[in-house]
């Protein structure tokens, strides 16, 4: 009956009131202030930031050769000499983990950049141009969506001789772009039908300017979310492939450390540290990215917004109450 739609947001009744003011404070760029204004993304940012710092200073806090062979130092439990213990080859696991962070971050970053930019370019172009271009892109997206990614990856990494990072990045981007392309295409389609696009056309804007000047700025948060999502999926998949031994197992990375731990059945011998530390590092990084994503989703989707909650006042204290609040601006 009448309550058919009690979901109608009662707050809409307030929507026309004098809207909030922007407080432009500090010199925090808008997007960063936005990320910091959300508890989840703030925590995620801090976690990912920590991993980045560790990766940057890795050469100074690790031993010279993280894969060094030393029977004397083999299979040691965590101690002040070897914070995370050593492998059965006597390599320092702490060094492997901090050096491995570099590979993980670089790989995730570039795979995400490649997949997201491919998805954005194809998705938005298809949405705007429509017709044959849209059909072709759609078929492509659907083909990549129905191929199960993990078996494809296993097969591909089996065939590809070069197991370098570039190959992995390309392979990961290839299997991950389609998800995002579909989402970005849908969003571009709905934005395209908004009056401001017609208004820009009526003003005389060129198509390129409408895409990059009007549409893309509205999709930034969605594109950022796509980027973060691909980032951590790439991390997990890469570590998974390495763990299965489907990668170059002579390099230093979290997955490889896990692979050797598995191969040498360390847990059976009561050695938990070769598993625990790289695994925890991976989990920590992924959790950080997941939180970041949850934060972005929250201010992208007003329904998830945790505005008006008491914690905002604490936040004000923390940042001197001068944070830019521009949630509405990014829709």
């Amino acid at each position: 009956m009448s309550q058919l739609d009690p979901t109608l947001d009662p707050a809409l009744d307030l929507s026309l009131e004098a809207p909030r003011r922007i407080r432009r404070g500090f010199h925090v760029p808008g997007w960063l202030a936005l990320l910091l204004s959300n508890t989840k993304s703030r925590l995620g940012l801090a976690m990912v930031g920590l991993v980045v710092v560790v990766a940057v200073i890795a050469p100074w806090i690790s031993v010279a050769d993280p894969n060094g062979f030393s029977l004397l130092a083999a299979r040691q439990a965590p101690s002040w000499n070897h914070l995370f213990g050593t492998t059965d080859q006597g390599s320092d696991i702490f060094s492997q983990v901090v050096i491995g962070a570099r590979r993980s971050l670089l790989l995730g970053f570039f795979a995400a950049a490649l997949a997201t930019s491919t998805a954005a370019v194809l998705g938005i172009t298809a949405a705007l141009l429509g017709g044959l271009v849209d059909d072709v892109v759609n078929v492509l997206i659907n083909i990549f969506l129905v191929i199960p990614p993990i078996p494809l990856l296993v097969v591909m990494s089996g065939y590809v001789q070069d197991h370098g990072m570039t190959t992995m990045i390309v392979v990961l981007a290839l299997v991950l772009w389609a998800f995002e392309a579909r989402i970005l295409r849908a969003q571009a389609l709905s934005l395209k039908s908004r009056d401001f696009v017609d208004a820009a056309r009526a003003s005389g804007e060129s198509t390129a300017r409408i895409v990059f000047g009007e549409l893309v700025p509205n999709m930034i948060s969605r594109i950022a979310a796509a980027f973060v999502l691909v980032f951590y999926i790439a991390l997990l998949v890469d570590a998974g492939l390495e763990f299965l031994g489907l990668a170059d197992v002579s390099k230093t990375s979290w997955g490889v450390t896990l692979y050797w731990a598995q191969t040498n059945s360390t847990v059976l011998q009561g050695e938990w540290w070769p598993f625990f530390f790289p695994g925890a590092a991976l989990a920590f990084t992924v959790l950080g990215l997941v939180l970041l994503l949850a934060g972005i989703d929250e201010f992208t989707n007003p329904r998830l917004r945790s505005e008006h909650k008491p914690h905002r006042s604490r936040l004000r204290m923390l940042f001197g109450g001068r944070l830019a609040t521009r949630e509405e601006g990014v829709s």
Partner: protein
Amino acid sequence: MTILVEQPSGSRRKTGLLELRGLAVEYGFGPRPARAVDGVDLALQEGEVLGLAGESGCGKTTIANAVLQILRPPARIAAGSILFEGEDILGKSTDDLRRYRWRNVSMVLQSAMNALNPVMRVGDQFVDAMRAHEKINRKRALARAGELLELVGIDHRRVSSYPHQLSGGMRQRVVIAMALSLEPELIILDEPTTALDVVVQREILQQVEALKRDFGFAVLFITHDLSLLLEFADRIAIMYAGEIVETAPAARLAENPQHPYTQGLLRSFPPLSGPLTPLTGIPGSPPDLRDPPTGCRFHPRCPHCLPEQADLYRRQTTERPTLRVIEQGHEVACHLVAEGAE
């Protein structure tokens, strides 16, 4: 808060079908919640059509949601009571509320026509709704749905149509028919025709009037379109920034509006016949309810609020006016009126 206490909490009025006493609804938490509704007293008699008019954001929809108890966080009732047939509905159990919403009050929203399930036949939606609330077999429910559709001027065979096969006006009438299906005593129409064309709007309102004559339900008609209310309502309450600023019988309000806001609203409608004079509307825009103006909330937009009249100006900007009866059934909250009429 303190102001609430000063207000006469409906003590002069006899208890009607629905009565709001000092109702206040807040949005948000923290030190500065927005009071979307602030100390509203309102009574609705049986069979009466009460119009509630005001601009968007003045709190009229919030009142409707409060009456139906479908406010959702961050909105909450901060003070006051809502009496239905003398019984306070605040603090009723979920089950009682469910019965109350179905049996006593139903609501038709502006977007209601989009609330029909697009993949279900119209008739099945009636059946589902009826069987959720009473024991009735499918066949009888369908027959009843057909009758109800005929009542709102839709062919009964339309029970087997899908919503997308109906026009917007027909869908809105379907929703009105659903709202009628259990013969409620009060129907709340929240901008029921705003999305529709004038001709369709007129047809629907004529039907509601005819149905009201037959069934005798009361109507709380919420809209921003005062000219509609002047025709269809018995009595009109004007809201501004969360408060009722004037109530009067429709005819009297049209002839003798007292509050400057009401006067401004009436002057915002150009006439369709007779001489045309330049209109001004109301300059400015409604206040931010998190930080409403002191004194009379309308004073920043009021053409009669002039610093030259120092004494009056001081009162307008510092004292909050309360509703005063200036004539039987005509109440105004305005310092100007209080001056002359009491």
